[in-house]
């Protein structure tokens, strides 16, 4: 394990930034700024430049999945010259980049996405970005009231990632978990020093203690998982749960694991750009086909999203839930309906209050 005094954090980040483009969570505007809206919009990832202040917020409003699965991505272009059609492959080898300060929940979300995009047939666009990204995760010193990562077996005190970091009042501790991570740590050896492998244990203990006390600490996922389709699919509670849902895409778009996309063409007049962009199963035209839509009413669309997170995905992915308990949907849903409420309503006695 390596450590770096907090006073030298800028140097550490500078050293990282030398190896690849470095992205860090920052605030929309500094505290003194009159730009209240940018500040209230929350943190987001931005490229680190010398002196960039890192956000103190627990998490970014948009999840870091954007780096591997951006909201829109060009796939190819077509060009008509007279009556001749040409197709251009727009794929390019992605440049290396580092994501710094990724939380445990979000790191797990990459695994969730990997299962989808890297299994056969491999999504070359995603794979390209994934191969070039290095994840530097950060333990959650102050988990928020809306956090429930433990429900899904995620340890915010000991995240996954290429490099794991912990921070206390004096130091930032770093340990590499992968070859990529080792490489990065070697590259920043000049600004870090060796320390005992248990140096971060105190931090871990504090975090664990705090996780125990979270309001949602008792939320259990046991009732859900693969093979439970019949248990939940026809539950009348879906009607009630979906009643107020607006059918907007907020939960989907802030969710680190939502992975649905649509493929569309944009005609610039000179060429046609074929791109993919995020889609939401909450939208009425989601997977619209010639015969119409296969989930014609809103309850069905609402149900799909939660069934996918809690039943369908685990069924196809060895029990892994595709919710990571980051709490983004809890704080952003316009009508405050969310997966926790769904789990409590459907999840039987163990989740009853």
């Amino acid at each position: 394990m390596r450590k770096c005094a907090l006073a030298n954090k800028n140097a550490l980040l500078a050293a990282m930034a030398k190896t690849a483009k470095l992205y860090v969570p920052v605030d929309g505007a500094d505290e003194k700024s009159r730009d209240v809206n940018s500040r209230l919009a929350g943190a987001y990832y931005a490229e680190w430049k010398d002196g960039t202040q890192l956000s103190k917020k627990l998490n970014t409003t948009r999840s870091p999945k954007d780096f591997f699965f951006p909201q829109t991505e060009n796939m190819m272009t077509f060009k008509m010259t007279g009556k001749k059609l040409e197709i251009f492959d727009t794929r390019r080898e992605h440049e290396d980049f580092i994501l710094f300060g990724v939380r445990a929940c979000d790191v797990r979300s990459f695994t969730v996405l990997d299962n989808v995009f890297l299994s056969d047939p491999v999504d070359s666009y995603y794979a390209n970005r994934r191969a070039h990204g290095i994840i530097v995760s950060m333990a959650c010193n102050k988990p928020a009231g809306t956090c429930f990562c433990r429900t899904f077996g995620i340890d915010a005190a000991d995240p996954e990632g290429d490099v794991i970091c912990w921070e206390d009042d004096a130091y930032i501790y770093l340990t590499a978990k992968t070859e990529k991570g080792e490489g990065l740590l070697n590259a920043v050896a000049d600004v870090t020093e060796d320390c005992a492998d248990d140096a971060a244990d105190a931090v871990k203990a504090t975090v664990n203690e705090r996780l125990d006390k979270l309001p949602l600490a008792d939320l259990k996922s046991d009732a859900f998982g693969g093979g439970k389709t019949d248990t939940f699919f026809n539950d009348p509670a879906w009607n009630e749960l979906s009643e107020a849902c607006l059918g907007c895409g907020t939960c989907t778009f802030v969710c680190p694991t939502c992975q649905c996309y649509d493929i569309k063409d944009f005609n610039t007049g000179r060429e046609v750009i074929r791109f993919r962009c995020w889609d939401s199963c909450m939208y009425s035209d989601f997977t619209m086909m010639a015969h119409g839509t296969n989930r014609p009413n809103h309850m069905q669309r609402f149900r799909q999203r939660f069934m996918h997170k809690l039943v369908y995905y685990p069924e196809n992915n060895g029990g892994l839930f595709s919710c990571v308990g980051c709490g983004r949907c809890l704080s952003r849903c316009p009508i405050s309906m969310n997966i926790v409420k769904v789990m409590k309503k459907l999840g039987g006695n163990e989740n009853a209050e």
Partner: protein
Amino acid sequence: MQTVTRDLLLQKACELLDAGTVNRVYGWQKGQFDYDVTPAVFSSREELEKDFVYNDFCGANFSKYLIKETAGEGKILVFLKPCDTYSFNQLLTEHRFDREKVYAVGIPCDGMADIRLIEEEVGEGVTGVETDGDKLIVHTLYDGDVKLNRADYLAERCRVCKSKKHVAYDELLGEDGDVVDSARFDEVAKLEAMTPDERFAFWQNELSRCIRCNACRDVCPACTCEKCVFGNPKSGVENKAVSDSFEEKMFHIIRAFHVAGRCTDCGECSRVCPQHIPLHLLNRKFIKDIDAFYGEYQAGAEVGSRAPLVDYTEGDMEPGEAVASVDERGGKDA
């Protein structure tokens, strides 16, 4: 603190259910925390007693839900705050629901708190917020209970509340208020007073955060199209995600234009925006311009009023004059 209490609303709801006046109640359902209240339909006294809540986080405007709810059998009780009643009337003007199937109970509103402002102040470990007179007591994970001045943490739309007066109801709980001479156009005037470059930079910064989740559209009581142009591939503006900075602007300009003259300035768009884009500043710009160009008009103040964009007079300003006139106004107000 709200002048009407949860118990009073509960009592009224139960009374009307028992009397058979209504068979359902549109109300607020309590959540995990005090601030994550969900709009919900209650159909019995038991449900109401268990989950009905009324506190400083009941900002949701129920008017739009009435389109869906009036399709059902029987009458539904809906609680409407003053600002909600404007949307209610506007929807009636547009023939969007059957007035006969709604029993509207007007309730006074003392402004609703904004959890984002509170979290920005105390950090993210908020587990609950209680109101104690003019104070908010925020329960936090790491800093114990924090006391805040309630007035400072009201949502923007409530701090510049335009009306405490109900413009529609079957029954009113408590006292009706008045239309307020509010400062809601001050921010617009400030922007108008900026240089075009500053304005461009301002909006570029704000709109670039848009993730096109459509929450603003889906919550908007003026957006009740059967099929939105942004979801219609034949409309020429359809798109599911922002592919380009142009589209951010396009979406928000078109959306604001489509609701211009019909927007009651209820502020739901800004409330629900996950990226906290001040969308109300677009709508209020249209309202301010309409007031200045064509005389004051408040959408929803009266059922059946003619919106300024479907009306005209022979002496209206020319577009060039209209745009130029903003300079003078902006300079004066700011």
